[in-house]
């Protein structure tokens, strides 16, 4: 009995130490990425290429989702607002939900699924096929050549994607609210213009999306770089990317929102 208990405790301790260890090596990896960023900025075409792969290639899924999210928001919002006779406020509701929350959060979740997994799988496979070792043996740092450009591409893409998400979402909301439901066109836009604050809403939304960009891209890169060089290792790393990124985004969103609302 005692032996069994000791075993359980030992296993638990082992797992906790392992997590802390990984957190530490993740932090070190992040630091190295920042240090080597200078080298990668000198070859800016690498970053631009990655912006194409992570940002531009994610446009379709992000924009289509945004359109539907905006339409659903308008439907749900109208349904509730009309009970209180304030259906003109629909424009504000759609815009604020998108700019403050749904834009950054849903974009980050979709980004983790679309671009994050691609990054993890690509780097994991590069490691498995010894491409990263080969680079190192050619006196080229894989962090400068492979990791840093992808990192900055993610950090640049995410706020832009989130902004597009909000924009297309508002458009989707408009299409449902004004032509379909029949809310007044002028009221829809003027209420939105009057009640969306640049600093409190838009800037804070951008800050969120930058933070999510750093978190999602870093998690995807680290998981790929840290993946055991086997088929199973890469597949597990890809799964971990989605799970960890999603949890990180939701957790960080709560923390950031509390700071933004309090201050």
């Amino acid at each position, binding site marked *: 009995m005692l032996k069994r208990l000791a075993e359980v405790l030992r296993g638990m301790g082992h797992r906790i130490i392992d997590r802390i260890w990984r957190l530490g090596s993740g932090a070190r990896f992040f630091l190295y990425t920042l240090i080597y960023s200078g080298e990668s900025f000198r070859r800016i075409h690498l970053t631009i290429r990655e912006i194409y792969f992570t940002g531009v290639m994610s446009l379709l899924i992000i924009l289509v989702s945004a359109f539907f999210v905006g339409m659903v928001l308008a439907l749900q919002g109208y349904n509730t607002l009309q009970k209180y006779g304030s259906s003109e406020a629909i424009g504000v509701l759609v815009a604020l939900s998108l700019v403050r929350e749904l834009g950054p959060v849903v974009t980050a979740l979709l980004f983790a699924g679309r671009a994050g997994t691609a990054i993890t799988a690509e780097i994991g496979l590069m490691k498995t096929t010894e*491409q990263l070792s*080969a680079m190192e*043996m050619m006196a080229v740092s894989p962090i400068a050549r492979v990791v840093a450009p992808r990192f900055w591409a993610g950090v640049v893409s995410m706020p832009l994607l989130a902004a597009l998400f909000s924009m297309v979402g508002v458009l989707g909301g408009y299409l449902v609210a004004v032509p379909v439901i029949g809310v007044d066109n002028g009221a829809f836009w003027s209420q939105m213009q009057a009640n969306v604050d640049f600093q409190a809403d838009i800037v804070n939304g951008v800050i969120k999306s930058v933070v999510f960009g750093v978190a999602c891209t870093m998690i995807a890169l680290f998981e790929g770089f840290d993946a055991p060089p086997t088929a199973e290792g890469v597949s597990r790393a890809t799964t971990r990317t989605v799970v960890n990124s999603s949890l990180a985004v939701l957790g960080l969103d709560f923390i950031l929102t509390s700071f933004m609302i309090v201050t």
Partner: protein
Amino acid sequence: MADNIVEIDNLSFGYKGRLLHKGINMSFPRGKVIAIMGGSGSGKTTLLRLIGGQLVPTQGEVRVEGQVVHKQDRHGLFHLRRKMGMLFQFGALFTDLSVYENVAFPIREHADLPESIIRDLVMMKLNAVGLRGARNLMPTELSGGMARRVALARAIALDPSIIMYDEPFTGLDPISMSVTCNLIRSLNDALGATSILVTHDVKEAFSIADYVYIVANGVVEAEGAPEELRQSTLPFVHQFVHGEVDGPVPFHYSAPDYRRDMLRGQDA
């Protein structure tokens, strides 16, 4: 003392308390082709990684051109690595770059040259491995042997003084094997480089190597010119060189008695 470009001195290396190498001494004279041989899992590839500074020895040291590899900082290590070319077991070509760009990669990274000179250099290296015509192909379009040759062209792109080969013959058909074999020797002599060849293919290695080290159980079991080793009467060397099934290296991985194992049923 002879002019050795690489020296391994009393080297021990292991993971998690298990030693893979136990006090290895080797020297690699300039201009020669030296083969490191041994069974699968005897830590041959690890030796190459130790020479390249990708791993740090537990004890002892590796010196390249007189400098201790694991004591270099990043800058020093990268400086040393520019003198080394390494051919990985399956080529390790960058799959997102064409053959041409793969060979141009180290040149672009380390030298600020006009495109016309890069082109000339890449063409020369590709011509040396006979694949000038394949320059626009992607790595996925190449056969195993061709990929290996492109990787070789990339490894010699910066005219290294040490070329390391990790199992260059694995998975090649007989023709590709002879081609690779001849290339290793002729490139070594043309570049005036030193080649370190890690392999378990006795016939090929013996046909081109000047000197051979046989590694087993973490130590250098035997060394000498190919002809000496072929004539060796040491039981292990004899078994290895002639590929005999039974000898000092048993056919069976250490296991309990066969009959008892079978009778025990499913609990094993």
